[in-house]
């Protein structure tokens, strides 16, 4: 996805200084319009609080320490779930991409499980784990597993066979072949999987925390709803958006660093 973004940007509009700022124009404009609409009473504050109220609510929660605690809990759940699901998905992707036997053994099963929407398992997961931490981690890991598994598998299977033959001709051992040819060749596809997985990670976490949790951002939003604190509800949603964006940016930076050989990432 990112490859296409960066290719389609024509040279002429890439002014170096403005470049980093340009993407913030639209969000800032939206906030400004929203503020005006709230202050003038065009949008009733019972429907949507003014941005300033949201910031104020955020400030209060920050002072009480509640905000940081909840963000930290959500962040921790997201990361651990991602790590667990991601590494298992990566491991299966590697195994099934490299070994026909392993693929024959497990791929069909995994494809079948993939067709069950993982959020449909929530009732079952609650029965199994209660509203324990493991319930959330399980759901996030399950959601993250498939995009990483599928894209790792796809990446490895689409490595140019001519390059693999070249590596063999030049006497690479299996390990070298993996390190120097197969893994770097699969990396662009693995990154696509990671970025998909990050999206699914937040989605899963929001749903899970809203339904079954006693801490975290989703829980904070649900509590606020019970007390009709609409500014806190909106605040939670905005923080989710911000964290999602942050995770995506981090993966982009990583992508740029590791794929600097790729024509799409070279300086123009």
């Amino acid at each position, binding site marked *: 996805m990112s490859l296409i973004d960066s290719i389609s940007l024509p040279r002429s509009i890439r002014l170096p200084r403005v470049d980093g700022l340009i993407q913030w124009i639209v969000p800032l404009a939206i906030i400004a319009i929203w503020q005006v609409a709230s202050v003038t009473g065009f949008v009733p504050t019972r429907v949507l609080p003014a941005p300033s109220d949201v910031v104020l609510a955020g400030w209060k929660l920050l002072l009480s320490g509640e905000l940081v605690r909840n963000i930290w809990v959500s962040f921790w759940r997201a990361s651990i779930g991602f790590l667990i699901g991601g590494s298992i998905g990566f491991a299966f992707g590697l195994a099934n*991409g*490299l*070994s*026909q*036997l392993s693929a024959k053994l497990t791929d069909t099963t995994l494809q079948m499980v993939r067709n069950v929407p993982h959020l449909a398992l929530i009732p079952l997961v609650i029965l199994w784990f209660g509203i324990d931490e493991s319930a959330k981690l399980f759901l996030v890991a399950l959601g993250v597993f498939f995009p990483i598994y599928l894209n790792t598998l796809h990446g490895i299977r689409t490595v140019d*066979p*001519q*390059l*693999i*033959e*070249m*590596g*063999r*001709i*030049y*006497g*690479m051992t*299996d390990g070298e*072949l*993996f390190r*120097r*040819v197969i893994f*770097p*060749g699969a*990396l662009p596809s693995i990154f696509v999987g990671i970025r998909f997985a990050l999206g699914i990670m937040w989605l899963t976490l929001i749903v899970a925390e809203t339904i079954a949790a006693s801490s975290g951002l989703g829980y904070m939003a649900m509590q606020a709803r019970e007390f009709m604190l609409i500014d806190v509800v909106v605040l939670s949603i905005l923080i989710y958006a911000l964290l999602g964006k942050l995770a995506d940016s981090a993966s982009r930076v990583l992508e740029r660093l590791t794929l600097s*050989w*790729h*024509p799409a990432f*070279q300086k123009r």
Partner: protein
Amino acid sequence: MQTALRTSLPETELASRANFAPHARVVREERPVQASGLPLSIRGLRKSFGDNEVLRGIDLHIPAGQFVAIVGKSGCGKSTLLRLIAGLDKIDAGSISFGQDIQPKAIQPEDIRVMFQEPRLLPWARVLANVEVGLGRDRASQDAHARAEKALTEVGLADKRDQWPSVLSGGQKQRVALGRALVSRPRVLAFDEPLGALDALTRISMQRLLERVWRDQGFTAILVTHDVSEAVALADRVLVIEEGRIAHDVVVNAARPRQRGSAELAGLEGSILSHLLSADDRT
């Protein structure tokens, strides 16, 4: 891992190479840096793909250091022959042996190199690292860098050592591939239409480069090409393959450096082309 790698490349390759080199390690240290070409003998070589009998008994002897070109119409089995020589596919019947008319000598995998029409460079490795790949088992040695740089200089790309392959032109990529093939000082170098994808001018300068490195290093060269004029310009001997056999074996005696478009070469080119065309009319 094993299974997938095998499906992309038959395991016989490594096995057949190992057969050439029973005492590999020992001989390697004694070998002079400037190793000369190896002679090559092929006897009764056959290869089929299913019902398709591609090679039906190839008999061929190539003396050490000779430059041989192989021509023939598309699909006649030129690439197949080359892959068998390079040990990339399994032989159905017959034999290929190197160095039989001198005393039996151990052959290293590094002694036989192939170059294809596609450069097959690793896009994620800089030019110099790509050339180092060609060192085979010597990749980890201390002088790997120096040797790769020397090979890059030989192909005239020393200034591109830190570039990514994606920024190179087609001709430059093919020169990097040549550097990678040369860096281990091979004794047999097989080319499968290495210049097929290049424009006319780049082709000619690459032909000169090929001839120069061949004369400098003295390896045995086997060049598969579609271009008969390229064949007569470079080779000592042109083989025409028809119906799975060597139908014509034409010696090119013209002195080097050769004058492109000279009457002598043009005459040879004409007679080889007429062989090819008459074979085409018969089918």
